């Protein structure tokens, strides 16, 4: 094979295969959390702009990298080659040229950038669904405000929204239901629906997204928020308008089983292990320290949204939550007081404070059965 035909027969196809493989692989896995597979109007606009910039950047990058390699090889010193090169000190025209060229390219990038910034910042539409997200340590609370005389709905880890309608998120770190309670900075991020927006204590940021397809999309806290930041996941469940309305109505109902009806499990839950200090199972309109459990069994995930809601997981969680999601909760069974550090849910089998009971597995199973009956 001559040098040229070798290039044509082998090199070009190989380069072609590799680059198309990179392109295909580049769009990545169908993991419901992939910013390159947008499923929302906002995320799609961002992706389009990003891809435009990627193409420009790729041209420049290939140009410079190839230029560097080419210069190094072409001008390398070899025996017999004159090692007294012409001493160029600069070239004004050239230098002005390559000062202006990036400026022009950047202008081309800047125009759609600024335009999209303002586009994404449009005030909310009149028919938008308004939902409050509160960043907690380390889970998300979602509140659907009271409407038309119906009470608000407080839920956790799963955000239900209707398809095709703008969702207007109010992002909070301070929970007005719990005066003086402000959390740290979190960041609300559902890559397939929109970019992220920080949850700033003391401020209220907002973020809109419009889902284009029904389905489940993963979200995750994107601002480092302490020990279990990695676990702070949530999911957005995009439903048809009807399904969404049904879901909201069902969430507004009272508990399927009241504490009183739950008998022994209710006693374990409220009196013996004082779960009610932080949780409620009785009223879906209440915002309390822990996730509102009134309709826990209607969710598919729990525990920071990291674990599937199965009985086995739930029993393990009730017994020893910090072994599943690391938390600073050793002292959470003590009364609040100076020096008592309590973030998260305590273990009921380890570090039991003196005088308090340690939970048995059968008790945990009873509590789990009760919680799983809360449809």
């Amino acid at each position: 094979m001559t040098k040229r035909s070798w290039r044509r027969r082998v090199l070009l196809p190989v380069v072609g295969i590799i680059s198309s493989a990179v392109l295909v692989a580049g769009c990545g896995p169908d993991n419901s959390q992939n910013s390159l597979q947008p499923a929302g109007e906002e995320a799609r606009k961002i992706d389009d702009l990003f891809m435009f910039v990627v193409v420009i950047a790729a041209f420049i990058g290939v140009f410079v990298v190839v230029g560097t390699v080419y210069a190094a090889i072409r001008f390398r010193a070899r025996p017999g080659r004159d090692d007294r090169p012409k001493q160029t000190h600069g070239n004004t025209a050239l230098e002005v040229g390559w000062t202006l060229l990036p400026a022009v390219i950047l202008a081309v990038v800047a125009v759609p950038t600024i335009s999209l910034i303002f586009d994404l910042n449009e005030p909310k539409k009149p028919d938008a669904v308004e939902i409050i997200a509160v960043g907690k340590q380390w889970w998300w609370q979602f509140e659907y405000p009271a409407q038309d005389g119906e009470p608000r709905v407080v839920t956790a880890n799963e955000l239900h929204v209707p398809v095709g309608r703008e969702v207007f998120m109010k992002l909070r770190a301070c929970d007005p239901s719990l005066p003086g309670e402000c959390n740290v900075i979190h960041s609300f991020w559902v890559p397939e629906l929109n970019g992220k927006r920080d949850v700033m204590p003391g401020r209220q940021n907002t973020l809109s997204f419009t889902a284009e397809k029904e389905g489940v999309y993963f979200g995750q806290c994107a601002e480092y928020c302490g020990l279990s930041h990695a676990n702070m996941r949530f999911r957005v469940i995009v439903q048809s308008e009807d399904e969404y309305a049904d879901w909201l109505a069902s969430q507004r109902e009272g508990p399927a089983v009241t504490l009183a009806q739950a008998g022994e499990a209710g006693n374990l839950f409220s009196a013996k292990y004082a779960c009610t200090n932080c949780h409620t199972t009785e009223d879906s309109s209440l915002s309390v320290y822990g996730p509102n459990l009134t309709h826990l069994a209607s969710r598919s995930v729990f525990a920071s949204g990291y674990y599937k809601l199965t009985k086995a997981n739930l029993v393990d969680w009730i017994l020893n939550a910090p072994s599943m999601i690391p938390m600073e909760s050793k002292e959470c069974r003590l009364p609040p007081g100076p020096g008592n550090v309590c973030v998260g849910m305590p273990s009921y089998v380890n570090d039991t404070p003196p005088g308090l009971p340690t939970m048995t597995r059968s008790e945990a199973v009873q509590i789990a059965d009760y919680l799983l009956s809360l449809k």
Partner: protein
Amino acid sequence: MTTVEKAPPVSRRDVGLLRRPRATTGFASWITTVDHKKIGILYVCTALVFFVLGGVEALLIRLQLFGPNGTVLTAGQYNQMFTMHGTTMVFLVGMPIAIGLGNYFVPLQIGARDVAFPRINMFGYWVVLLGGIFMYSSFFLGGAPDGGWFGYTPLTSAPLDSGFLPGRGPDFWTMGLILLGIGSTTSAINFIVTCINMRCPGMSLLRMPVFTWMMLVIAFLTLFAIPPVTVALTMVFFDRNFGTLFFDPAAGGDPLLYQHLFWIFGHPEVYILILPGMGIVSETLPVFSRKPLFGYAIVVFSGIAIGFLGWGVWAHHMFVTGLGPVAISAFGLATMLIAIPTGVKIFNWLGTVWGGSVRLTTSMLFSLGFIAMFTIGGLSGVMHSVVPADTQQTDTYFVVAHFHYVLFGGLILALFAGFYYWYPKVFGRMLDERMGKLNFWTMFIGFNLTFAPMHLLGLWGQPRRTYRYDEGLGWEALNQLVTVGSFIIAFSVLVFIVNAVVSKSRGKVAGDDPWDGRTLEWSISSPPPEYNFAEIPEVHSRDDFWHRKYTEDDEGRLVPLPSGGAEAHAAAGHDGHGIHLPSPSYFPLVTALGLPILGYAAVFQNVWLALLGAVVLLYGIYAWAIEPAD
């Protein structure tokens, strides 16, 4: 006064506690030295030790993330690792290595015998070393910092018993960074005064070598960047320990204020890290291409422009904090502007190589690698200035990829170029080129394996600073690749360390000017004498040493001068008799020792330690002031 030949005493006060040390060799000489070259070596060696520590932290991070739901580290340990990795690499590696190289070579490049303030120079070194030890001692004293290298409030500033970050780690972090800031500030002042006042005759500012120029620029950046972060850190410490409410939103404080203060430091800090790298390759590329730097003036002015613009872009770290569309548009545009001087530099480096006689030494390979990798990092940087895209990328692995292309592909590759380039000058022997090539190629391949896949991981949704990820998200394969790459980098660093140690005694003897250099450091012996220049040189042009060796014919081709640079070595026979050099001193160390004691006093809120620290510090300062001159 230390002279090479014993000078008669000029002072009667040469007695007692304040007597100045005399050792010129051995351990004592390294403790008391004020020689900028020895201090430079100390800085670089210290920073390399921290580089290994920070590298080990990175490897632990990568082991943890090799597969889903990793269990190598606990969540708490992982958070300490990424916090200390970032803090170490920025404050205990990037800055000290640049300061170390600058210490050694700025005076040599401007024809000076030392820096302007030799004792302050040594003080700066001790503060960095002790500050680093202080920070790392936290591992044994109740837990390392775990609030991230950026330490956002209110996570870091909430009172200890709020449980957000229990343990003393964040206090070690704030105090440690304040200490390191003191060290950096003294170095900055020293570089500024040295560059302005101590240039040899004829060395006008626009004849200064570009590396020295960049050290001058970063000295100014450091001087103005450290105060805001010191303020911010102090406020964090007070919020956390003394009940102030600067960042407590429930009391009307504002956590966002911290981010402004941190990034008005933090962004110039990025340029403090990268500009020395740009300076280094602006030295090596001309030497190994046998051509002058293409467009010297525009390269220097671009560096200055980057320095200035670096102050106007801090909020691009805060695009998702809700600053509003007008503010983020302005900061997005300002960020794009920085790409212009950066692009100009890249093209000028290519113009330097173009048409040259390129010697592909290890140093040159690292320099060329710098151009290519830094360009990729710069381009992903422009993607961040595209604000809507940044809202997807920020706080993901895409950003991790971006700044490692800038700081590893940029700074670290340039530093290695500098090591291979200057090692012969410092130790008189060459680093082994065969091991060097192995060092370069393993680092280059390992680097790209480690950081290129992170672009995709970020776009596919993997957030930063997460100690585990669940299975089924499609991130497994690339994370494994990244971990493999990181171990190739570790191997490469090991090769370098072996090379550096072995070559010190076994390397080929370098001679004064092994690379056919252009700048003044190559005009003196390797290693240089204590006094650097027997006679202070007088320069007549940019790259004066080169022009002592070569002239150009009518077509601009090189013509060696018949004397072959003999003029350069005219003073070789000089024995340095009677050259005045500053005397060694104990007091930089004593003074610096007071600072970490005060740091421990603050962290543990111990009055007795505070008194002890104050006594040591004041003793050091006063003894420093009144110790005799010789």
